[in-house]
């Protein structure tokens, strides 16, 4: 019995490793993805290209401009001379924001009245626009409070004043709020999904397509040995991918790894139950490799988008949030981020582990049931 299994495994590994394109997909694509996600995917908003249209040209207005520039968020690339110029710059995408200080700014402040400062933001990228607005409001708010404190100091005769409330904020798990810490470990979940689901289903279907399935049927090999022979190599490759991503993440990108790697590997095993199960399921409903690929794709694409990988689940409508409970990626991503960034253990992560287990325990046996060693 083990002889047959061993032969099957050796055959599978040889077939996989022999094909240079397979090798590229297995080893090259994860690396490419990690680098793209590590460098390209960046929602941190810094160096916002800004123009300043200062109609007042007073000490106060220049002070406000200086505070904007020194904040590190805004990069003042132009001092505009008119609204026309601002419009042109934004239309062409050369600036993302503009600050317009009206004539009489300082005079109004001195006169204890309220002046308005206009902040014009290019709203085409809504997410960036929102962040830019909050930065502008924060800096302006700080400056405004400063002026008020000066007034108060002058009024009460003491020097200086204090702001009544200050917010001391700390970001846990990701002190500098770098988006790559969020995305790069998540790449692991994607890679494993693609490799184990898509490739395993295509591998089974290829046997059907080129006719070698019939040859296998006439051998004494049992159904379960065939299944194990087809799934185990891809499980191993999945683990190799996890190791690769971990090494690159920690040593190249300096992403913290605060939790227990063994827990991650255990969770990966549970995750593989689901993905390999789906792969097997897809192979039972596909007659050609192309169909297998399409079906896998139709599943992986929405699964990846709705997993909380890039778009938070909390932002989704409630009904859709419930559907994500059926998505193994959701649990796996939570565990990955928990292990890398939060450093938590099974005590906190047990619901996700349980979720993975339940999904896998339903899908894998179901797929095996459906699997018939037929050529059709």
């Amino acid at each position: 019995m083990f002889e047959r299994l061993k032969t099957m495994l050796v055959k599978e590994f040889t077939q996989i490793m022999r094909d240079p394109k397979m090798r590229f997909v297995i080893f090259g694509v994860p690396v490419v993805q990690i680098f793209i996600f590590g460098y390209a995917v960046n929602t941190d908003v810094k160096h916002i290209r800004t123009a300043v249209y200062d109609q007042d040209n007073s000490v106060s207005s220049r002070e406000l401009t200086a505070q904007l520039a020194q904040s590190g968020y805004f990069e003042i690339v132009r001092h505009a001379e008119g609204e026309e110029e601002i419009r042109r710059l934004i239309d062409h995408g050369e600036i993302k924001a503009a600050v317009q200080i009206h004539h009489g700014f300082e005079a109004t402040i001195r006169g204890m009245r309220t002046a308005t400062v206009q902040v014009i933001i290019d709203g085409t990228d809504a997410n960036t626009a929102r962040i830019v607005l909050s930065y502008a409001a924060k800096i302006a708010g700080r400056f405004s409070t400063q002026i008020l404190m000066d007034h108060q100091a002058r009024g009460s005769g003491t020097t200086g004043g204090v702001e009544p409330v200050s917010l001391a904020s700390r970001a846990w798990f990701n002190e500098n709020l770098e988006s790559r810490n969020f995305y790069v470990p998540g790449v692991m979940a994607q890679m494993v999904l693609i490799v184990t689901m898509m490739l395993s289903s295509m591998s089974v279907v290829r046997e059907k397509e080129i006719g070698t399935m019939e040859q296998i049927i006439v051998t004494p090999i049992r159904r379960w040995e065939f299944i194990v022979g087809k799934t185990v190599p891809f499980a191993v490759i999945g683990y190799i991918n996890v190791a690769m991503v971990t090494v690159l993440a920690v040593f190249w990108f300096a992403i913290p790894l605060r939790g227990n790697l063994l827990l991650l590997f255990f969770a990966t095993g549970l995750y593989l139950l689901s993905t390999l199960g789906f792969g097997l399921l897809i192979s039972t409903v596909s007659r050609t490799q192309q169909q297998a690929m399409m079906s896998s794709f139709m599943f992986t694409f929405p699964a990846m988008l709705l997993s909380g990988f890039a778009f938070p689940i909390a932002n989704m409508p409630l009904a859709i949030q419930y559907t994500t409970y059926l998505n193994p990626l959701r649990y796996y991503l939570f565990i990955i981020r928990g292990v890398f960034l939060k450093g938590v253990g099974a005590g906190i992560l047990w619901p996700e582990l349980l979720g993975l287990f339940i999904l896998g325990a339903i899908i894998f046996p179901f797929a095996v049931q459906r699997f018939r060693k037929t050529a059709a």
Partner: protein
Amino acid sequence: MKYQRIAAVAKKEFLHVIRDPRSLLMGLALPMLLLFMFGYALTLDVDRVPLMVWDQSNTPASREFLSLFTGSRYFSLAGSTDTYREIERSIDERRATLAIVIPADFARSIDAGKTAQVQAIVDGSDSNTATITLGYAEFIVSGYGEKILLENLARSSGTTVTPPFTVEPRVWFNADMLSRNAIVPGLIAVIMMVIAALLTSLTVAREWETGTMEQLIATPLTGPELLTGKLVPYFCIGIFDLVLSLLAGRFIFQVPFRGDRPLLLAISILYLVVALSLGLLISIVGKSQFASSQFAMIATLLPAFLLSGFVFPIENMPFVLRIITHAIPARYFVTILRGLYLKGVGLSVLWGEALFLMVFGGAVFAIAIRKFSKKIV
């Protein structure tokens, strides 16, 4: 090139496509799925952030301060506690994204004219949400601080005081800052690239793999005729998806369209041809269906999604990647789409992008024809 020959190939390809329900399904259902997901489910907008509070002061002042948070649409109170342990656990378990701790001497500090330090602890693992959440929190805090200062000033000077200045935000093109107004136009670029490139990438490779290519070579068909005929049904699917996306954008998501409609159609068709040619080239160069499909995904889907500015801004990318994005047709189309939809600009601003698409498309198609001829001979 003879028209009848092209028509004959086109008819054959149509039959192939219709007989393959899965590809057809993908060509039609996937765009609808993407539109639905990006229009409704996938957004980076942050609302109702779960908030955990620890009020060590428990005075009217601190309660008033807290009500500014709980009453805001940006926060939703997840619970209150009196231990750090519970705060840690709630953040670990994702029950809360932000925790606010108000010190015991909150009210006393303010009355004495000193600064009360409020602690904010945010779950940093999702940096985007964290940044936005902190922004909201700072906004509320500075607003409260200003109010206190104004009250103090009013008391000491005996008159009412107004804040020195306020910020008047003007958000152009997308006043409500809805993610969907930014994403839905860009999504059109992604959908068309995915469909056109992914589906087309398999056509030529399939003929080689099943052996029917040699039969085609034996016919009097020339290379260009065969390739053009092959593209016809996929072109039709692409047009269908394009119209579907445009209609969905207009009627379902109500994304404003401020530009020139004929221009939109013309450039979209141009882009479709570019995407189809790319898929064709990949199909010719890849020796098997498997290789072609994988390569198509890396060369078209991934860049269209990640490097086109569709979701992740190109300005945030490092220099090298920004240079690379110049070689990606989806980048130009996303810029054009956003320009047409939201900014309402025309060719005078977008001519550079349109020119690139034309040149790129022509070059790719020419290379595809050359590579194909070489293989036949």
